[in-house]
């Protein structure tokens, strides 16, 4: 029961952050919080079943891998889109641009 409420609160926090955050990195973090909330909801519901419902567990396992790949793509896009670092051309050369 506590975990269901936790999932709800995290969902709202994540959604609020996703819509209103200023920096793109923060939006990515909010998206991750949001997905954690959804996973939590699924697993907390699976626990009510008897015997333990294995299907949501498998779905969440799949979801974690999908969300990490989405995060990685988003982060790479963010790094490529943001202006190169201030300190000198050296970094620019290193970054291969």
């Amino acid at each position, binding site marked *: 029961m506590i*975990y*269901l*409420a*936790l999932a*709800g*609160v*995290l969902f*709202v*926090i*994540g*959604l*609020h*952050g996703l819509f209103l*955050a*200023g*920096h793109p*990195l*923060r939006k990515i*973090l*909010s998206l*991750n*919080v949001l997905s*954690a909330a959804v*996973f939590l909801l699924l*697993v*907390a*519901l*699976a626990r009510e*079943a*008897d*015997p*333990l*419902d*294995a*299907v*949501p*567990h*498998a*779905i*969440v*396992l*799949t979801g*974690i*891998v*999908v969300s*990490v*790949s989405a*995060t*990685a*793509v988003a*982060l*790479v896009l*963010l*790094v*490529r889109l*943001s202006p*190169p670092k201030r300190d000198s051309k050296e*970094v620019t050369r*290193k970054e*291969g641009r």
Partner: protein
Amino acid sequence: MGGVVLVFDVLLAAALIWLAWQATHTPGLFRAVISFIIFGLLMALAWVRLEAPDIALAEAAIGAGATGALLLSALGRLAVTDEAGTPWQERADLTFWIPAGLALLGLLTLAAWYLPSPGLGQEVQASLPDSGVQNPVTAVLLNFRAFDTLLEIGVLLLATIAIWSLGPMPMPGAQAIISPVLPALGRILFPMFALVSIYLLWRGSHAPGGAFSAGAVIGAGGILSILAGARPWLTGSAYGPWRVLLSLGLSAMLAVALGVIVLGQPFFAYPTHLAGTIVLLLELAAGLSIAMSLVALYLAGQPPTHWDGESLRQ
């Protein structure tokens, strides 16, 4: 006894909410990232409390390990590490957000209320003997709902392709500190990573573990050894081994899915006597692909065709 467990749950929930708030709503990007890493760590504890050790394993490996490394190295490459002013846009209307949030919470509660409560636990238990493994989660992942896993491996491959298509991988800057600790760490820990992931793969058929955790662990090991400056073991022309290993999981799953049709079975329905072997082989292929994809995601770009250690350091 019950009281202490309740206190534990409430403390954990409060800490998680506070960390989520920190990660999304307080100033300072680094603070947000570190809060999110700790959030992942505590989520692993929450999964244990919710009797989902499989997910706890994956969260410990991916959430607390790989995601943290991804976020931190992205942060290191960003020019601006701090935002000016408040981290969220000021046009937040409380008159809209409070009712909207409450309504959303209410809808979620309603949805949770109406879900069929017994779930599919009975059905999974009943068909477990035909699946070839004893761990219900592995059975669902690689037998009953193998289609989902196929798509998931596809997503990983797609993510890797997307990242590779963005250009060559950024070369790491010259290391500011020369420490004897790092290479030694890579040397000592990498065999341990390999050992633990083989152990998890082997355990996967009858206990929590399996391809996901094993792949994530060895992928994290790869990230650590790249950080430690180890010369990547995947030398060779035209990044041949990368491509083969990355697509191994998807191709193996497709081969099995279509192969069983030749044997006269429906799509993805394994013959019962072969199920155990098939699941094990699929786990091996999927684990290798997941590990390679994690390392590829971490590299943030297409690795160079010819990889020699000297040019990497320059």
